[in-house]
């Protein structure tokens, strides 16, 4: 698409790249703090680690305004339907980070009460290991997600009538 002859001072790019760039630079998170990991998620947003550097300091309470759900903590059988409902309310395109061992696999609590991995409920793009993951781990996960979105590695088909 980029022409061979372009006027000086003008950058040409594909629309997709431009859109992806915009998406990654202001990826707003939905508040979905559940347990210990939520504290570390808040720590990531606070002064020391400052998620604002990545355009992500805004955590939206309303899922309608959020692009990214960080599932921070253990998901119980009772919470799983709520989680799915919040996910369904988010508008496309949307991404999910599963933060911590419990959200990713059930962690050390392999028992009757917990959903063994949040990917049984919602599609997960990034798994962040740790119990709980430190702010650096979470930031690494977020930046990895940004890279993937920029590369076009993660594509979300827009299905009309869903989400």
């Amino acid at each position, binding site marked *: 698409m980029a022409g061979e002859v372009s006027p000086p001072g003008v950058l040409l790019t594909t629309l997709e790249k431009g859109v992806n760039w915009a998406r990654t630079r202001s990826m707003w998170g939905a*508040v*979905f*703090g*559940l*347990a*210990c990991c*939520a*504290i*570390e998620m*808040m*720590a990531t947003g*606070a*002064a*020391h680690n400052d998620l604002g550097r990545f355009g992500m300091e805004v*955590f939206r*309470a309303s899922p309608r305004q959020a692009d990214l759900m960080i599932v921070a*903590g*253990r998901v*119980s059988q*009772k*919470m799983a339907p*709520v989680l799915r409902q*919040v996910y369904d309310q988010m508008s496309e395109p949307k991404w999910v980070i599963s933060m911590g061992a*419990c959200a990713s696999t059930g962690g*050390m*609590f*392999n*028992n*009757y*009460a*917990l959903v063994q991995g949040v990917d049984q409920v919602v599609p997960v793009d990034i798994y962040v290991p740790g*119990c*709980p993951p*430190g702010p650096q781990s979470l930031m690494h996960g977020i930046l990895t997600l940004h890279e993937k979105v920029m590369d076009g590695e993660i594509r979300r088909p827009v299905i009309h009538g869903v989400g």
Partner: protein
Amino acid sequence: MSDKDTTEEQQDAAVAVEETPAVDAPMERGEAGRRRLHEMWVAGTEERADVRHFTDEGAQELLGDEGPDVLAIQRGTVVEDDYEFDDSVDAEERQIINMGPQHPSTHGVLRLQIELEGETVRRVKPIIGYLHTGMEKTGETLTWLQGPTNVTRMDYLSPFHNELAFSLAVEKLLGVDIPERGQVIRILMTELNRVSSHLLWIATQGMDIGAISMMIYGWRERELVLDFFEKVTGLRMNHNYIRPGGVAADLPDGWEDDIEMLLRKVPEGVAEYREILDENPIFLDRTYGVGVITPAECRAYGVTGPAARASGIDFDLRKAFPYSGIDKYEFEVPLGKHGDVLDRYHVRIAEIDQSLGIVRQILETMPAGDYRTADRKVTPPPRKRIDESMEALIHHFKIFTSGFQVPAGEAWQSVESPRGELGVYVVSAGGARPWRVHVRGPSFAHVQALPVAMTDSLIADAVATLASLDPVLGDVDR
């Protein structure tokens, strides 16, 4: 609150903590304005019969309005509002709003069903269990030495207290004595944990009532404490550091410098918070006379810790049932006298000072010696011995795979966590794993008491009240 004539009372509020405690002091603040009055406390009666059943409405949802208990709630309190409240209003004119489980201000996944009449909360129903992790069941499948790994994840803002209570309970059954240095390290870590937890509380309380900058400030100092935790235990949270038999490792070299830095910087930060909040009219208006819990209600509903002390109950487990030699240190138990959100703030601020005072005394008097018991039953052999001796290697392997046996019996141990009485009840059948682990989390009782504090207050105060009790949902649901 009217702005002018309450200046004196505001100053009174600011110094409330320093004053001598008066349990039966009349509640002046309620008279100041539209805030809720507590008929019972004002009358000075602490009769048990007057403690009403606030928490009886419905299963996981509010029931119909016609039950006698429900009517008792409406009759039971005097409402002093700006507008006239008409008792004959139909139930249809009330609305039920649902707060949570996914809500930014509920400190986790608490769900509240609130029945409103205009702006006034008439009924509240806490619905919990959204974070039920089955930890008590998992605890029965882990060995005694693995137990702290489990309990430390319950109240994730005060992990050391969970570990300490569990370890002390197990040691009670074992009959093991911990060397002095091990005990002092335990006290050091738990008191620092109290500081970090209260700092987080100030941050979130500030955020919940609109002081967003407090959020950033509180985290700033908390990170300093967490850095020290990371240095000592390897983790910022969920440390699994205090174990049956002592602690996992000795303090690192140069820990004194870190503590000195903390003792210098945290009080500076706290002074800054007080500058922001103490005389801030918005903060005072949002907290003053809000969310009152009377001493009788604290007793009846099991409200403990700073929330009970803010109501004037002079009780601290560190004084009443000293553990790990905490009675060697001098500290005071700060008290409030009105039992509102503002007093809880003052009590917690004062507790930070007291805890830092204990840490300062520890810094000066840290004894030398071993950090864990020499009892080979619970303590693995030192690293050097493992290189030399096959038996030591096998011993080490056995302790960490099959675990050690604990004599049959039952034991209760509670410690004063930043939120209140944290009790652990363990039952051993004589095996390598507990028969039953039950943890009495202070937050569970606090969530239960939420309707007491919220009923007949304004909906805008609901979040301030909730935050002031500092419930940690991991502790509630376990």
